[in-house]
């Protein structure tokens, strides 16, 4: 078999295999009558290595054999192939963030008091990691709960010079009247105190779903 054909077969096999191929394994691709010598295969592998010098991939030898590998320096671009679409934040997270913004400094217990449901740890973690919120102290009550406040990053993100630029509570109530039934119509406002628990439960479910 001529050397060019041998090279094509080995290139093809290395790319198709999905795993490293040993020299023996490569030899077994050939019928016994045409099976190349070990040395020939190694010569070809060296030639392939040279061919790849300026390519986006290279031939590397690992414990179990040879394989093609995408060049490490391309990882910033290659990684984009798997970039996931960002998920949306849950309603629970947004409510928590809003309460911290408007009621700061505030403890988690106080947020729960207003929202009527527990605030999951993962929500606080997300807000702290995003650096929209930070701990500015601890309340001197049993358990010494952390007190949260918003950060400059929070203001920057929402294009605000200061918290004053947020709408007033009265404006929010108007927003609520105008939009609540339109934008939030999937969130039912409960008039029945008994179903408060049900509402809390469903909010919980929503929270755990999103965090």
């Amino acid at each position, binding site marked *: 078999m001529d050397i060019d054909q041998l090279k094509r077969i080995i290139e093809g096999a290395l790319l198709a295999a999905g795993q490293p191929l040993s020299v023996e394994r490569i030899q077994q691709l050939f019928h016994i009558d045409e099976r190349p010598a070990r040395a020939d295969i190694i010569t070809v592998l060296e030639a392939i290595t040279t061919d790849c010098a300026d390519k986006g991939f290279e031939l590397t030898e690992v414990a179990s054999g040879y394989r093609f590998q995408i060049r490490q320096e391309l990882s910033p671009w290659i990684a984009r192939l798997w970039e996931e679409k*960002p998920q949306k934040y849950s309603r629970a997270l947004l409510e928590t963030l809003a309460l911290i913004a408007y009621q700061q400094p505030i403890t988690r217990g106080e947020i729960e008091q207003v929202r009527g449901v527990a605030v999951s740890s993962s929500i606080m973690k997300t807000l702290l990691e995003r650096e929209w919120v930070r701990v500015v102290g*601890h*309340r001197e009550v049993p358990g010494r709960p952390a007190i949260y406040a918003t950060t400059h990053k929070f203001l920057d993100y929402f294009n605000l010079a200061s918290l004053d630029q947020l709408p007033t509570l009265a404006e929010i109530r108007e927003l609520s009247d105008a939009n609540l039934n339109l934008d939030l119509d999937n969130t039912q406002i409960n008039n029945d105190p008994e179903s408060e628990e049900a509402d809390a439960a469903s909010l919980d479910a929503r929270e755990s779903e999103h965090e």
Partner: protein
Amino acid sequence: MITEQNIVPLEEPIQPPNKEQVQAELLAKIPDDLYIPPDALEVILDTFEGPLDLLLYLIRRKNLDILNIPVAQITVQYIQYIDVMQNFRFDLAGEYLVMAAMLAEIKSRMLIPRESEIEDEEDPRAELVRRLQEYERFKQAAEDIDELPRMHRDTFSVSAELPEMDHQQPVPEVELREMLLALANVIARADKFTHHQIHMEPLSTRERMTHILVKLSEIDGGFLPFVALFTIEEGRLGVVVSFLALLELIKDSLVEIVQTEDEGHIHVKARSGASAALSSIENSEKVSGSTTPDDSASQATLF
């Protein structure tokens, strides 16, 4: 009725592998006309894709003349198959019976003497021929598709070891409006369930409270003069806002103030707990892990 006699054991069980050999044997059993011996029926079912396929085969390979089909004989035989066929794939065999019926109909129409007025009547076989021809085209198309170079047979996908990558999950984007609507929702909900409406301090006071706590934490438990909590440029409003914020913080037991002499400087100090402000995230997680309700004082600021 199924009887022992009716079930004719097949000499050659159908073996899917080694298809070409089997295929040759099967085709050797195919009869020359549409009379199919019961023991060959299963062979027919496995070999042909239905009656059109069988008819095409007979016409193309065996020179079947559909004019000379012994319909009566076939009909009797086909009815006998029904017993046999109950053992296997009756639905499929049914298609052959439909075909036999169709052929019988054609034959009978052919046998009716033509009167001169209806001499122009369409040949009863025309529709069958049209269907056979159409089927044949797609039978060919199926073979052509099978011949196309395809993945995992003629060509193969490629892969290579991936470089190490930082998988950075992009963070969700939020619009201010979304957050405000969320707040509107909380307020609406809270208003329904509490006797009190939510009252909130002006945001400037709230913001100043946060600033004071941050400043106090920076000096790590030391005292800060009240005058350091605002700047000259902020004017009277700055003083007022700072003072209101300070009152709120005192009410919340977050700071303590000291005045050593009458009309002397007021000094502000974080309460012992608050001196550890700005603790790390992990620390805050531990502490805030509990959801203990807070003292009534802090609730008063909320409702």
